């Protein structure tokens, strides 16, 4: 989140919108955008993600996770502030479409460091009070424990 906030702070509102638009239109022709159901990225429906078969595995494992009836993909994978949300959607939309089209991404797919931070912030968003005692002391180095280190199975189920 820290990274994202830094990135966003350096941007004006028009800059942000431009980012969103660039993501949509330079990454995909309008046709591609339509055919690959590019609007997926703007929707909240997990089925939108599996328009890309590449996401099947994560979708299936999410279905088996204790979260599948309380959190959809976007609850974890995009930040919740309005601008941050659409910025991220655009950025992912661009990068993933490019990856999908050029088939030049690393497999198995791994979250970028910035995506990990977004997820971590979302864990905290929902579980804030439960982890208040462990999540960071008022002073000291203030680092929050990495939730995913112990709970990766909570999000995508036992068998990956």
């Amino acid at each position, binding site marked *: 989140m820290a990274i994202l906030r830094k990135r966003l702070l350096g941007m004006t509102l028009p800059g942000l919108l431009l980012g969103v638009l660039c993501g949509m239109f330079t990454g995909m*022709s309008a046709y591609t955008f339509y055919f690959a159901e590019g609007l997926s990225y703007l929707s909240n429906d997990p089925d939108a993600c599996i328009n890309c*078969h590449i996401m099947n595995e994560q979708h299936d494992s999410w279905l088996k996770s204790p979260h599948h009836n309380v959190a959809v993909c976007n609850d974890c994978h995009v930040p919740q502030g309005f601008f941050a949300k659409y910025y991220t959607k655009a950025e992912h939309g661009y990068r993933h479409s490019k990856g999908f089209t050029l088939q030049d991404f*690393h497999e198995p797919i791994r979250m970028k460091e910035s995506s990990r931070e977004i997820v971590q912030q979302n864990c905290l968003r929902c579980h804030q009070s439960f982890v208040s005692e462990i999540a960071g002391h008022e002073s000291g180095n203030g680092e929050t424990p990495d939730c995913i280190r112990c709970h990766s199975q909570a999000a995508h189920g036992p068998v990956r």
Partner: protein
Amino acid sequence: YLGQNIMERKAEARLASFKIVELSESVVDPAEWGKNFPRQYDSYKRTVDIERTKHGGSDAFQKLDDDPRWRILFKGYAFGVDYREERGHAYMLSDQDITERLHVVKQPGACLHCHSSVIPAYRKAGKEAGVPDAGGFNWPQVMAGFEKVCAMPYPEARKLVEHPVTCGDCHDPQSVALRVTRPAFIYGMRALARSDDPVPHMPSVERWRKGSRKEEYDPNKEASRQEMRSFVCGQCHVEYYFKGPEKLLTYPWHKGLKMEQAEAYYDEVKHVDWKHAQSGAGVLKAQHPEFELWSQGIHARSGVSCADCHMPYVREGAIKISDHHIRSPLLNIARACQPCHNYSEAEIKARAETIQDRTKAMMLRAEDATVDLIQALEAQRKAGVSDSALDKAFALHRKAQWRLDYVAAENSMGFHAPQESARILAEAIDFARQGQIEALKAK
């Protein structure tokens, strides 16, 4: 352009395979199978590739030159003449033809069980032995033929086969489902199921044991798909011996899959591979116990099969296929390991090599100890000490050599079961040094 690309991929996802030729038990040539399954066939052909890793790979260098202690350790046995790093499946038949081991000693047809696509030959021999034809695989014929071909002299049997391992050895020609075809494996698994060695990584065996036990355990009927993904490899990547004058290929699993259980079996049937030319002890040779050592490791216990690492899924467009380029997973870490281990490729390699380096260091220590024992025995015999006075030391040489060779002949340099390999080597060292002490004391 972009849109078209996506359309292609969506289409691809639907058409995984076309039925172009009709496959049956009699179709041995992989090129025929390849017409229906071109992707698998393409990767299958790549087992001709040659590449080296730190402790493995497919460069068939001479192990006896790499570490000359093995010339001493194998003194008096065919392995002391030619013993190479193994390589891809494409070479299995030709490498057998060219090994010096075949020229210095008369070998039986039994070898072909694991070095060729042998089933049609078994069927033919079975028919000659009087078992009638029948549709499909015809197990009775295959089993009868197996016995006959094992006993043949190698050059005669060699004429019956043409291909290294091919599709039908692991797949049903109709359904392409996995199957095992090797008689020695069938017999081995029957014996294992009847033993009481716990095998938590083989749930179908544990289940069979709880049943009526009226019929023998049959992997083709009982095993899960995940188990079959290791069983097809366990057909060949196992310790074996040729039983009796019939040279019947046999896997020593009657007491269980552990190193000392095989040893106890050999002791019971009084099997000796050869009399060591320098020490005079009757010793055993271990051969590629990958299946057995993997069985003792944490991966097997976690349900990770041979195919998971050695034939990982690769995505070809929209479909995932099993990589039939079977090789060292360390040449393919992203696909072989990263689906389960979320570290960088460099880090995963470092972890595997740390395990292998430790094993190697212990192995060298065990080699030194066993060579010291051999030399102590040789010295005493030269000094005129009688064989009966050296009995205890002979027995210890047998134990030490078996343990050392068990880890050395296994091809993962300890990776398949790190702690178990270390345990085996620790025992090798202990027995070798104890043997040396017994030899020194003997008069």
